[in-house]
């Protein structure tokens, strides 16, 4: 029973008003650690967007053509994880072949993406909301792009924050979380822009 929400609305919402990171809290761990460095943030954000979009579409297809007909819904988690791991592995090999420079830049990030909760989380949301193909595509791309946007913004802010004198107990993850909190509040301001249905 898919809903009639316009895919473009989903795209906009997943980047701004329901940002996978700032509203749904997914993908925090690498977000907090990698945002220290702008270059790595760019690379990781790009990788996440790529992986998110591809895995979302593939998961949708697997769900529709394998899981549902065979009625193995209870195995969904394992199926999704395998899809993610497989795609990350294939992507790694593909990038290495096509552009060794990019492969070097992304480096360690690709295997880490496998356990990034944002990827699995977004796929689970797609399953629960019964999106059709275009909705899933927009949701996957939008979620990835939203994550990328958030990490770029945070790394820019952190450049200043990390240089500032902060109390010892708050240094590092503490002040980063407060910064993210303000970002989350700012993003809530977008929610009035959406005209739904």
């Amino acid at each position, binding site marked *: *029973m*898919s*809903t*009639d*929400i316009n895919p473009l609305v989903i795209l906009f919402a997943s980047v701004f008003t*329901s940002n996978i990171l700032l*509203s749904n809290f997914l993908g925090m761990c690498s977000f907090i650690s990698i945002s220290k460095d702008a270059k790595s943030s760019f690379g990781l954000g790009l990788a996440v967007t790529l992986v998110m979009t591809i895995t979302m579409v593939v998961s949708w297809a697997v769900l529709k053509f394998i899981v549902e007909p065979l009625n193995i819904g*209870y*195995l969904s988690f*394992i199926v999704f994880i395998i899809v993610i791991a497989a795609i990350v592995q294939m992507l790694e090999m593909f990038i290495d072949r096509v552009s060794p420079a990019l492969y070097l830049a992304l480096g360690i990030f690709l295997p880490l993406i496998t356990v990034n909760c944002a990827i699995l989380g977004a796929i689970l*949301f797609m399953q*629960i*909301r*019964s999106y059709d193909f275009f909705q899933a595509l927009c949701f996957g791309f939008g979620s990835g792009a939203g994550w990328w946007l958030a990490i770029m913004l945070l790394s820019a802010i952190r450049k200043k924050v990390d240089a500032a004198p902060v109390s010892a107990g708050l240094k590092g993850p503490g002040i980063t979380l407060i910064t993210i909190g303000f970002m989350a509040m700012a993003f809530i301001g977008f*929610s009035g822009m*959406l005209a*739904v*249905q």
Partner: protein
Amino acid sequence: MKKDSTSYTVWFTFVVSLFFVLLLAFANELTSGRVAANQRFAERSAILDSLGLKASGVAATDEAAALSAAALSAAAVQDASTSEAVDTVFDRSVSVITADSARFLLYKAVVDGEVRYAMGFSGAGLWGAILGVLTVNADVSRIRGLSIVAHNETPGLGGRITEAWFTDQFRDEQIPPAGIRVRQGSGAGDTNKDNGELDAVTGASLTSKSIEKIVNAQISVFRSLFEQGGLQ
């Protein structure tokens, strides 16, 4: 076979995966009956609640809750009349009428001496479908009840449409010719049953507007059934 050889790796992965998947299939089989019963309980409870019929809030399969309900009832803290099983009340009071135009079944029951009609609905919320049951009286002049079965709205915000203060607003609410309106109010529930207006959830204006659209759409369905003489 050396541990790091390719053949061992493949064999290992295959065997381990098969083992765990089989265990899961077994666990799933064991519990599928209960899961289906829980599902049916949730649907029937929503229909009864929307109609205004009282039944046990406890599923037959939910032993922990059953124990505490029995204890509360024994301590005379909880009304014993609400301990009748959902299936008992449902089978006794509710009859099913198939309406051709609708995707959902139409239910009919006599509650407090009045004939009421209930029908399930599925509409677009902010984040996914909102499923629920709406009950009206025989001439579609008043809503008798609304219950939300499932939704994907934000927990703590749009998700609050399942809370009693929100759904209770709809009970006995008059239906104006243009349909009901959900608007920003005190956020605590509109107690005026004759104005056709309901309070939205604070901080969840979009989800609340979706509810307005969905309920009005369902009211139209009831109205066309009424005009075609389908509601007797």
